[in-house]
């Protein structure tokens, strides 16, 4: 299996050869930042296209099919439109916070994005509390949403932001607990070790029942965390026009839009990493030939494929279920997901202590 750290180390050696260490570090940081932002933008564009296609197929339509072959250039055209649009100055807004909010949302999203293990050796941030850092940093986005709602000086925006706050703080618990369940199984918080631990079988199979429950709970809570349907109360087009980003225009709106799609990618990526082995190919213990064949598929493809499946499931949720009411939303979390999650954590501890897992 190809290890991407060969490339990164080669670049590192090259830079250290021609300039002092400190300068090399700066250049590397800039390069990584550029690569991240580029990947972020490209994935967001791809996801917007996929979302529109999937949505159309669920409604017996064809979706975008005019711009480029199969409408592939549609989201590029949309991006150009978004970039050249005017950012409208709104009267009576808190100018500073209003401008700051989209950047907080996008920074939180990029920071969480940089924790994902894309392929073997292709990971930006990797340290001993990696998954914990990811959860922490991705929750910063809620600050941006609350700021956007508050600074807009608009009651719809404020209602949207408050709902979003209640929703994200509640569902953060479920996400945290289901991740904790998997951490109990793997015994590590470091993302590379989490992936390495699944070399002889993905955690979803290794942890059988408790892992499956944690997986389902994670998916539900993750969908809620991204503010997507059926949990899209913060936006709720039919009630609140667009919730917290009603007053935003141009690229500021674009940032919220990008962050929403990238958060979906991050949630799917974490689900793939924790439950489906990250970039690790499908290995069945004992089937040597099968395992070898699986190793020939590049690790990047494995990761993107798993993420793609998870994203499809999240979109499937969105286009199947009607939107929840705020009380139903909170009831689902506090009366169902949380108790189930706590029991599941206990079950996982029992499974791990008595070595009942594979």
């Amino acid at each position: 299996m190809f290890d991407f750290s060969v490339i990164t180390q080669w670049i590192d050696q090259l830079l250290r050869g021609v300039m002092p260490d400190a300068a090399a570090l700066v250049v590397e940081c800039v390069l990584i930042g550029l690569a991240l932002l580029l990947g972020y933008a490209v994935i967001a564009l791809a996801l917007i296209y996929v979302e529109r296609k999937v949505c159309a197929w669920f409604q017996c339509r064809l979706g975008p099919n005019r711009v480029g072959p199969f409408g592939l250039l549609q989201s590029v055209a949309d991006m150009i439109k978004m970039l050249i649009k005017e950012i409208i100055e709104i009267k009576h807004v808190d100018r500073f916070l209003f401008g700051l909010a989209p950047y907080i949302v996008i920074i939180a999203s990029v920071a969480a994005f940089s924790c994902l293990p894309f392929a073997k050796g292709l990971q930006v941030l990797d340290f001993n509390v990696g998954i914990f850092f990811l959860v922490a940093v991705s929750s910063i986005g809620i600050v941006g949403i609350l700021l956007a709602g508050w600074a807009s000086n608009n009651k719809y925006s404020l209602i949207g932001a408050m709902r979003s706050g209640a929703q994200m703080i509640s569902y953060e618990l479920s996400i945290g607990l289901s991740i904790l369940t998997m951490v109990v199984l793997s015994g590590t918080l470091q993302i590379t070790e989490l992936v390495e631990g699944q070399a002889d079988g993905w955690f979803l199979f290794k942890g059988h029942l408790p892992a499956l429950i944690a997986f389902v709970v994670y998916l539900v809570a993750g969908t809620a965390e991204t503010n997507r349907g059926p949990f899209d109360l913060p936006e709720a087009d039919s009630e609140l026009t667009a919730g917290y980003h009603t007053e935003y225009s141009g690229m500021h709106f674009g940032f919220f839009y990008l962050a929403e799609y990238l958060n979906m990618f991050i949630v799917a990526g974490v689900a793939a990493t924790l439950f489906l082995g990250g970039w690790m190919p499908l290995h069945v213990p004992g089937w040597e030939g099968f395992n070898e064949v699986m190793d020939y598929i590049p690790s990047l493809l494995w990761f993107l494929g798993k993420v793609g499946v998870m994203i499809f499931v999240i979109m499937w949720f969105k286009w199947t279920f009607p939107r929840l009411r705020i009380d139903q939303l909170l009831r689902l979390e506090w009366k169902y997901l949380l108790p189930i999650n706590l029991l599941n954590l206990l079950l996982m501890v029992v499974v791990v202590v008595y070595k009942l897992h594979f």
Partner: protein
Amino acid sequence: MNSVNRYIVNFFAGLRSLLVGMRTTLRVFFRKKTTERYPENRKELVMFDRFRGELVLLHDSENRHKCIACGICEVNCPNSTIRLTSEMVTDEAGKKKKVLIEYSYDHGSCLFCQLCARTCPQRALDFVPTFEHAVFTREKLVHKLNREGSTLAPKPVAENLTV
């Protein structure tokens, strides 16, 4: 105990209904798409039969229509879309008869309610499923429905007997 039971039953019933919903949408996902790729497929695109595109006065192969210029369609039209011009003609037997000169139909103000075609005692009118009707001026939307040189079709013998 009752409430605990209800909690558990509700949970699984809810889960089941969600899965049923997801199965349904997945079926729709793989269903044939209904979107028409219009300008590309205008050669083979067929509108469904009941589509009301425009009113026509039916003509047979010998350029004969069935309109007896009774004016029922004109009276029934809510928008005064139809204007009939007719004249009185006396035939060889000395019988006076109304004959259609011009059947004028304003497509632009038509409501497509089909009251004209339904009330026609001769069943001389029908709606056809054409759909490319865009023109540049309103005058072009006023059509003359009876073709040049068309005549009244003689009543079939069978119909004569029933009357």
